[in-house]
């Protein structure tokens, strides 16, 4: 498996990461190196191995359904770029 420059552009766009055009070939090369290593790892027989969602040998702890939080809106909005009438303001979004 390998990636093309167009893949890099697409992934960068989805992740909202800016990659300069000149940097794309290098990123392609480095990613392809990593993917080559992944290909090598694919040779290992994992048919008997259960897929792992987390490397820790532990289970999710559960929380009681009781409110524990207080209203800290003022503190949070003090560090927000813009807030008005209790709302966080962002550039207009309309689908």
């Amino acid at each position, binding site marked *: 498996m390998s990636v093309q420059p167009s893949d890099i552009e697409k992934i960068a766009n989805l992740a909202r990461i800016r990659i300069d055009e000149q940097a794309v070939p290098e990123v392609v090369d480095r990613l392809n190196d990593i993917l080559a290593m992944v290909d090598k790892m694919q040779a290992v027989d994992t048919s008997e191995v259960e897929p792992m969602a987390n490397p820790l040998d532990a289970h999710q702890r559960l929380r009681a359904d009781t409110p524990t939080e207080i209203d800290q*809106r003022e503190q949070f909005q003090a560090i927000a770029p813009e807030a008005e009438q*209790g709302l966080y303001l*962002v550039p207009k979004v309309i689908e």
Partner: protein
Amino acid sequence: MEWETVIGLEVHVQLATQTKIFSGSSTAFGAEPNTQANAVDLAMPGTLPVLNEQALKNAIMFGLAINADINKKSVFDRKNYFYPDLPKGYQTTQMDEPIVGAGTVEIQLKNGSHKTIRIHHAHLEEDAGKSLHEGVLSGMGHGSSGIDLNRAGTPLIEIVSEPDIRSAEEAVEFAKKLHSIVTSLGISDGEMSQGSMRFDVNVSVRLKGEEEFGTRTETKNLNSFKFMEEAIELEVERQIDILEDGGEIIQETRLYNGDTKTARSMRSKEEANDYRYFPCPDLLPVVIDDSYIEELGNNLPELPDARQARFVESYGLSEYDAGILGGEATTASFFETVTEQCGDAKLAANWVMGELSAKLNNEEIGINHCPINAEQLGGLISRIKDNTISGKIAKTVFEAMWNGEGTADEIIEAKDLKQVSDTGALETMVDEVIANNTEQVENYRNADEGKRKKMLGFFVGQIMKASKGQANPGMINQILLKKLND
């Protein structure tokens, strides 16, 4: 050409927990913007999610109610996309290993037939916040959107059906059944107007007899049964028009506007998001054992199907009436309280499904906000049963009760509506009517048995009018017959 509609539903149900799925913020509806959004909900660096046990239990309860496989190990994944009402830049959801596996839901159609809709799976996830645009808020006219994150992190289950639904009617019945299951379980308040249940409908059409599915579109975020029905009908018509004109359906996401009854394309598949799901490293796999599931199963509240059967069995209701009264937990318990109060299930059923539900529909309010409580309605019906008032006067009392004028007894007393059952008084009334309508009396006496029955109505009507509806109709009939036939 005969077309067949194929529909699959994705239903988002807000769970009725006190707190969010991954944080201890309150989920109470209607709070001031952003007062219920804490550091976890705002995705502040260094915060970690912890799963709300009640949300997990609620999802398992739903799974048990639809006879689904409950997965003893389930995993949370990240669904990555950018939108201002999603502070983390991803939604925590379940992709490959959801908590609830395949199950089934039975629906009953208007023609009385039954159908099984398969559920592909149901998973736990968090809701996003709300974006408020210009115009919604005064003074926000400078090209900004306002974000309220109170809803961010509210626990949801997303229920995904198989494409087993074949019409808008089936889709609505299915949605209503899910609504009655989740409200009966008490895992959701089912308040549609507050967004507690939202539907995405996948619609395609194909020629009857065709094996392959047609290209489908998805209409998102429908928040009422009515809008869902309208959106499906509109979309089916649109697709058939395109296909019959030789065109092709484009796979796309659509938005339906319930006010204008129109829909538009939101985005096509080419620009569709690639969500790059992966297991969430902040949350460990959720592992539960058999006894955990068993205990929830043993304590499951009565489900709509069982309740419907019980209503038929113990109250002698028709299957249809039992379906209407037993389908929803609030209506069911209202009806049972009325019945208990008045001791007559048939009358209680007639009033709840008749006068009461007509009034509720008219005023567009739900039974849980009904100004008349079940005890009051039961009290009213009791007064019909013991002949204190007639069924007709009962409607007057009902109106007064609706307007908050008190209990049935108080209203009957205050308005002096008591039925006249005093033989002497009734005889006087009958005598008067007979004396004032000599011609009709003559006609009656000359008529044959069959015609007489009809003509009797005239006299009864006159007496009811004279008594302002308060004469006991049973006694009037008796006295009248006796006097006319003398």
